[in-house]
């Protein structure tokens, strides 16, 4: 049946800058905020915005993501007509190709979008933490009669050169787009969230595919091309919380933001709920000698030690005398008695042995260059008494990975 707007969620990236965390899974499947995974945010935004047809474009290590999304029921995307669809690259009579770029991923699924014959298509990223009402953005898109609406937010001028910057006129029509400009003319950064009028985008995708020099990327090719061709493109200003969690530091930051009043990311916000698939487990037990403060705790945990300014995901265990501070602990991890974990991201089902020390506070490290967040990939076992230095990244075979 015809839909007004279909969302296409780009979830195929490896997330190589999350290093050991994405060794076995795509970035959008990485756990976030105790109960969620990153992809819960865009999916829940769709549900809350009334978009009931979502294509999820997957490519890198899709098993975890596919099984997590399943039939889409947690997001109410198990619909008779529409719902969530996983769209991996496929083979066709003329051959098989991987998704060459973000635009190519949509190009290869023109047939999927056409099936719903939508007026508009929202192109979303699977690795952003934010709560946005796409229906409001869509209203702006329709009212302005644009071919493309790009959601933007003001960033500090000092950081503007790290983003794709939109220069706009007095009516927020986009006049110029500059990818990571050295001397930014504006501080409106693209958030990588687009709404297109489908028939326009469809043609640009076909033309882009025919161009052998194109990298088939939205930011690098499609958007500049549309601007060049004089299409009406408008900016949609967003002033809520938004973070690209593509790096370990930003992933850690976003988790910590959830604990920080006034950060804009309110954990207990009831107005714009984030849905997720949660495992079946009993409530959390906080033991008689536990000391929990400024922390988010999901269900199924057992806490017998100290947990300060940290995020504990479902079914994690903190033993007696253990201390977890300024850390993100992902589902099923076990921190045994007396272990110390600070400024760390502990992957799913890791086991930190008795008395082990993982990470350290910055004030305990002499050389600031040597300090950083310590990260353990899923399934890593740290032996009792072992020390894992700050800024170290370990995977489950204890191979150390170094930040490039």
């Amino acid at each position, binding site marked *: 049946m015809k839909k007004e707007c279909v969302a296409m969620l780009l979830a195929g990236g490896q997330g190589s800058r999350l290093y050991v965390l994405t060794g076995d899974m795509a970035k959008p499947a990485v756990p976030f905020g105790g109960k969620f995974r990153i992809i819960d945010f865009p999916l829940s935004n769709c549900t809350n915005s009334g978009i009931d047809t979502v294509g999820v474009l997957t490519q890198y290590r899709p098993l975890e993501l596919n099984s997590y999304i399943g039939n889409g029921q947690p997001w109410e995307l198990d619909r008779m007509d529409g719902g969530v669809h996983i769209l991996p690259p496929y083979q066709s009579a003329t051959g098989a190709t991987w998704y060459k770029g973000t635009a190519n991923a949509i190009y290869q699924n023109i047939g999927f979008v056409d099936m719903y014959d939508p007026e508009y298509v929202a192109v979303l990223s699977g690795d952003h933490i934010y709560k946005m009402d796409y229906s409001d953005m869509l209203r702006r898109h329709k009212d302005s009669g644009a071919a493309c609406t790009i959601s933007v937010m003001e960033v500090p001028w000092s950081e503007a050169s790290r983003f794709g910057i939109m220069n706009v006129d007095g009516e927020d029509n986009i006049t110029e787009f500059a990818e990571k400009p050295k001397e930014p003319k504006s501080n409106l950064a693209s958030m990588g969230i687009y709404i297109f009028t489908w028939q326009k985008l469809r043609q640009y995708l076909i033309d882009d595919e025919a161009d052998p020099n194109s990298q088939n990327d939205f930011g690098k090719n499609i958007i500049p091309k549309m601007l060049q061709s004089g299409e009406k493109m408008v900016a949609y200003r967003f002033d809520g919380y938004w973070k690209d969690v593509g790096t370990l530091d930003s992933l850690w930051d976003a988790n910590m933001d959830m*604990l920080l009043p006034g950060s804009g990311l309110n*954990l207990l916000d009831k107005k714009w709920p984030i849905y997720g698939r949660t495992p079946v487990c009993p*409530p959390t*037990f906080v033991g*008689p000698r536990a000391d929990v403060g*400024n922390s988010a705790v*999901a269900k199924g945990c057992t806490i017998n030690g100290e947990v300060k300014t940290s*995020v504990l995901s479902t079914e994690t265990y903190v033993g007696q005398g253990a201390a977890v501070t300024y850390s993100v602990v992902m589902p099923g991890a076990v921190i045994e008695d007396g272990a110390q974990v600070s400024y760390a991201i502990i992957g799913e089902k890791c086991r930190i042995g008795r008395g082990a020390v993982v990470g350290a506070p910055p004030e305990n490290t002499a050389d600031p260059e040597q300090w950083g967040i310590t990260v353990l990939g899923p399934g890593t076992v740290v032996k009792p008494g072992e020390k894992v230095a700050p800024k170290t990244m370990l995977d489950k075979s204890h191979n150390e990975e170094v930040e490039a």
Partner: protein
Amino acid sequence: MKGMHGIIFSYEKPTGLRELTDHRVHGSVPFAGDYRVVDFMLSNMVNAGVTDVGVIMHGKCQSMLDHLGTGKSWDLSRKNGGLTLLPAFAYAERRESVGQFRGKMEALGCVKEYLEHIRQDHVVLGDSDLVINIPLQDVLRDHLASGADLTAVCTAQLGDSADTYFKLDETGRIIDTVRDIHTPEGYRCLNIFILSKELLLHLVEDCVAHNQYSLRGGVLQRLGDQLHIRAWIWEGYAARIDTIQAYFERSMELLRPEIRTQLFCPERPIFGKENDAPSSYVDPDGQCVNTLMADGCDIRGSVKNCVLFRGVQIEPGASVENCILCKGTVVKKNAIVRNVITDKYVTIRENGTLMGHATYPLVIARGAEV
């Protein structure tokens, strides 16, 4: 077909649950932070491979209907079989009954047509107010191996004198069934029974014909000599939630790890209704010890020895000890609360003091502001 069909009894009956059953039947009383009591029996059945469950309800069943819905949370929303809700709509016209079912056989008699259409060759009957995590597939296996007509689950742990007790012979056969005895002895009946569909239909017909409405009186006692009735002795945890005192003590017991490991074992998970609450948050000044805490709580005061359901808010300066706070309870600033059970969406006002006693906890009805 082979396998078991589940029947859960969830009709209104007199209990000592006071305010907690003002709006609901005892089976849908909230328990253990994230569940309704009925979730345990339902999960037991599902974990034993039961795919079809009928829930017989009568009386204040709105809350139970809401809770069970299509049965999706227990994976019982199926094209064939699945969960069937059996409210006693046609009941009033039947016989001389008034208001409540007087016993299990009467309840079964009212859904006889449903029973006739059961696909499986065996049926397990269970109560909705029993907190237990039991491998029912083992009970069925032993039932089949023993060649018994009826197997009744019981425990050596004695309870009230009002409970039903079995006397067994050395082979495990039940030779006498008694209740209201001065000093409880023998094995306490846990009201879980397994029998063939065929026998069940026969017994229902026979009991209706003889004006027998209770399973104890009409079957266990009356036909005890004619049927081969065996006991299956359960050595694990079982708790019936039928009085406020039992509710309070059983809830507080959950703070002991050895009780929780018996109730929440990974090989037989207890399924509750899924929810979208975020993680709970404990503030820098919040304190939370020896407490069972569901999702979505916001702890800014002090909490000790409590069971907190979803979305409980404890404001700064408030102090809560030995309490059971149901979903959405708000304890405002500087309130002091001890030995209190609050039903859903209760608000305790600023600077208020509410004290119950461990042997007589205070119960606050749903939605009250005190």
